[in-house]
C-alpha cells in the first residue's frame, strides 16, 4: 500500500479498523475528535459498531462490555476524558479483558487547553486507575508510528488480556504526514471469539468476567498473577529508538513529540561537533530502564526533554542511579519546545562537561 498524506487522528482510527477493530465507543474531545468522527462514518459502512456514548465514563464501560464479549474494541480520548476513564481501565485490568485506548494528551490540569502536552505521563504510565497495575503504554513520534503502534496495541492487548494505551500528545493527533496504512484485516467471526468470552453458555460451563476477589488471600493470588504477567511484559515488550548514540558524550532521553524535537536538536548539535545522541523510549511501560542504565555507563551526562514539568525524568534518574548528572528541560501548558531551545540546553550541558570534575 502506498503512502498517503494522513492526519494523526484519522490515521490511528483507520489503522484500528484495518487491525480488525469491531467496535468503537467514544465521546468528543479536542484534540482527538477527528478519530471519533472518522469512526462514526467508517464503522457503520463496514457493518461494525460505532456508538457515541453519553460520557467517557459510559464509553469505557461500553468498551469493557464489548471486550468481555470477545471482540476487538477501542476508544480514544484526551486528558480530561481519560481521567474519567480511569475507573474503567482498572476494571478492565482487574477482569483481564483486552482493550486499546488512544490518549491524545492536552494541556492541564483541569480543563487546561487543547494544545499538545505530555502532562499525563505519571497518570498513565504509573498506574491508570486504582489498584496494583500499570498499563502497557506506547508512545509514537510520527504518524507512521502512531499507525503501527495502534495495530500492535491490539495484538499486545490480546496477547496479555490487558489494557494498552497509545499515549500521544495533541500534535500527534493533529499533524499531517505521509504514512502507509496496513492492509485490511477481517473482523473475527462470532464463532472465533475467545473461549473465555461472554458468548452465551451453550454446551459449556458459564463464563464470568469479574474483578471482585472478596477473600484477601484470593485477591493476592490474582495480584501475583497480574504481577507475573507484568514481568512477562517487562521481559518481552520494551521498545525504543536510538539516534546518533555512537560515541556520544551526552544522551538525550525524550519520547513522542519531545523526542522528535530533540532529534532535530541532536542533528544541529552534531553539526557543531557536540557528541550528543538520542534515546527515544517507545514503550513507556515497560520502560527501557536497562538501556538507560547501559547508556549511563557510556556517556558523561544525560538530558531529559519533556512537554511537562519533569515526569519521565524520574524514571531516567531511577535507571541512572546517580552515575552521571541528569539534566532536565521541559515546557508546559501546551507549549512545544523548539529545536533551538533544546540545542541551547545541549550546549549548556556540553559546556559543563568541559570543566573537569
Amino acid at each position, binding site marked *: 500500500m502506498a503512502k498517503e498524506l494522513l492526519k494523526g487522528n484519522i490515521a490511528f482510527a483507520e489503522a484500528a479498523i484495518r487491525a480488525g477493530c*469491531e*467496535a468503537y*465507543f467514544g465521546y468528543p474531545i479536542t484534540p482527538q475528535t477527528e478519530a471519533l468522527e472518522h469512526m462514526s462514518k467508517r464503522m457503520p459502512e463496514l457493518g461494525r*459498531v460505532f*456508538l457515541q*456514548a*453519553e*460520557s467517557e*465514563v*459510559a*464509553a469505557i*464501560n*461500553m*468498551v*469493557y*462490555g*464489548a*471486550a*468481555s*464479549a470477545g*471482540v476487538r*474494541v477501542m476508544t480514544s480520548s484526551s486528558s480530561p476524558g481519560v481521567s474519567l476513564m480511569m*475507573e*474503567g481501565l482498572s*476494571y478492565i485490568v482487574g*477482569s483481564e479483558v483486552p482493550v486499546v485506548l488512544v490518549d491524545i494528551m492536552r494541556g492541564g490540569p483541569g480543563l487546561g487547553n487543547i494544545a499538545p502536552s505530555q502532562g499525563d505521563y505519571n497518570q498513565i504510565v504509573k498506574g491508570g486507575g486504582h489498584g496494583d497495575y500499570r498499563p502497557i503504554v506506547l508512545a509514537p513520534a510520527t504518524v507512521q508510528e502512531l499507525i503501527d503502534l495502534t495495530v500492535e496495541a491490539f495484538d499486545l492487548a490480546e496477547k496479555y488480556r490487558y489494557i494498552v494505551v497509545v499515549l500521544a500528545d495533541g500534535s500527534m493527533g493533529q499533524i499531517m504526514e505521509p504514512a502507509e496504512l496496513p492492509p485490511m484485516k477481517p473482523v473475527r467471526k*462470532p464463532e472465533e471469539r475467545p473461549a473465555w468470552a*461472554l*458468548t*452465551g*453458555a*451453550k*454446551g459449556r460451563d*458459564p*463464563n*464470568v*468476567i*469479574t*474483578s*471482585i476477589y472478596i477473600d484477601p488471600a484470593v485477591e493476592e493470588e490474582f495480584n501475583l498473577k497480574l504481577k507475573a504477567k507484568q514481568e512477562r511484559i517487562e521481559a518481552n515488550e520494551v521498545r525504543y529508538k536510538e539516534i546518533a548514540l555512537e560515541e556520544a558524550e551526552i544522551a538525550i532521553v525524550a519520547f513522542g513529540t519531545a523526542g522528535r524535537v530533540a532529534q532535530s536538536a541532536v542533528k544541529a548539535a552534531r553539526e557543531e561537533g557536540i557528541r550528543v545522541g538520542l534515546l527515544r523510549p517507545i514503550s513507556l511501560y515497560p520502560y527501557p530502564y536497562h538501556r538507560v542504565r547501559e547508556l549511563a555507563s557510556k556517556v558523561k551526562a544525560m538530558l531529559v526533554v519533556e512537554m511537562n514539568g519533569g515526569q519521565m525524568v524520574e524514571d531516567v534518574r531511577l535507571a541512572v542511579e546517580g552515575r552521571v548528572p541528569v539534566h532536565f528541560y521541559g515546557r508546559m501548558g501546551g507549549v512545544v519546545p523548539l529545536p533551538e531551545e533544546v540545542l541551547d540546553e545541549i550546549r549548556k550541558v556540553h559546556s559543563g562537561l568541559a570543566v573537569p570534575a
Partner: protein
Amino acid sequence: MAEEKLVESLIYAKPESLYPVGTHYCPGCTHGVAHRLIAEVIDELGVREETIGVAPVGCAVFAYNYFNMDFAEAAHGRAPAMATGIKRVSPDKIVFTYQGDGDLASIGMAEIIHAAARGENITVIFINNANYGMTGGQMAPTTLPGQKTTSSPLGRDVEMHGFPIRVAELLSQLDGAVYVVRRSLHSVANIRKAKKAIRQAFEVQQQGLGFSMVELLSSCPINWGLPPVEALQWIEDHMLPAYPLGDYKVHPAIAKKPTR
C-alpha cells in the same frame, strides 16, 4: 400382600438457570425471590444458553454465583453501559442487568437514562429497597422522606437531601423505553405479577422492540431493622403509596399481545 405403589411427582425444583446453592442474602431478603423469578422466566423462554447477565455493585454483586449463565460484574452504576457494549457486539444474545437503587438511581443515573433514551435492546431488573443494602443501609435516592437510615439518622430531610426519585415514571418519559413497569415482591399475588412483567420484559427484548425495565419494590429487613414479615408489611404500608405499582410505558406492539 398387594404392593402399594409410591407415586412421586415433582412439584418444586430449582430452575436450571439457578445453581443448586444457597445465597449470601440475609434471611427474608427479597433479592432471592427476584433471582428466582428471573431464572424461571429464562428457563421458560429457553434462552439460558443465549443469555448474558450483568451484575451490579451492591448486594447482588455475586449474582453470577447463583445464575447458571454467562455473567459480567460491572463497575458501580455502569451496568447499563457494560450491557450496551455486550449487546451491540452480540445483538442475537439476551442481555440483562440486575441493579439496586443506589447503583441505578444514584451513581448510575446517567448510564440508565441514556441506555433507555437510546432504546438499547436490553432488559433491566431494578431492585428498589429504599436504601443502600450492601454498605450497611445508607440513604439512597429512593429513601422515603422521614425514613431513618445510617446516613440520615434523623430521617430523610427533604430540605437537605431532596426528594425520592421515582425511576419507572422517569424512564417512561423517554421514547426509547418501550416497557417500563413497577411491581412489588411483598406478597404471593404481587410476586406472580412481578414474574409476568419480567417475562414480558424479556420478550420485548426478544422481539427487538427496545429498552425494558421492571422496577421491583424489595425488602431489606436487616437494614430496615425489621423481621422479614414486618419488612414485607413495610413495603405495603410505606413504599406502595410512594411508589405506585403499575405499567408506566407499554409499547403499542406489546399492548396488543396478551401477556401469558
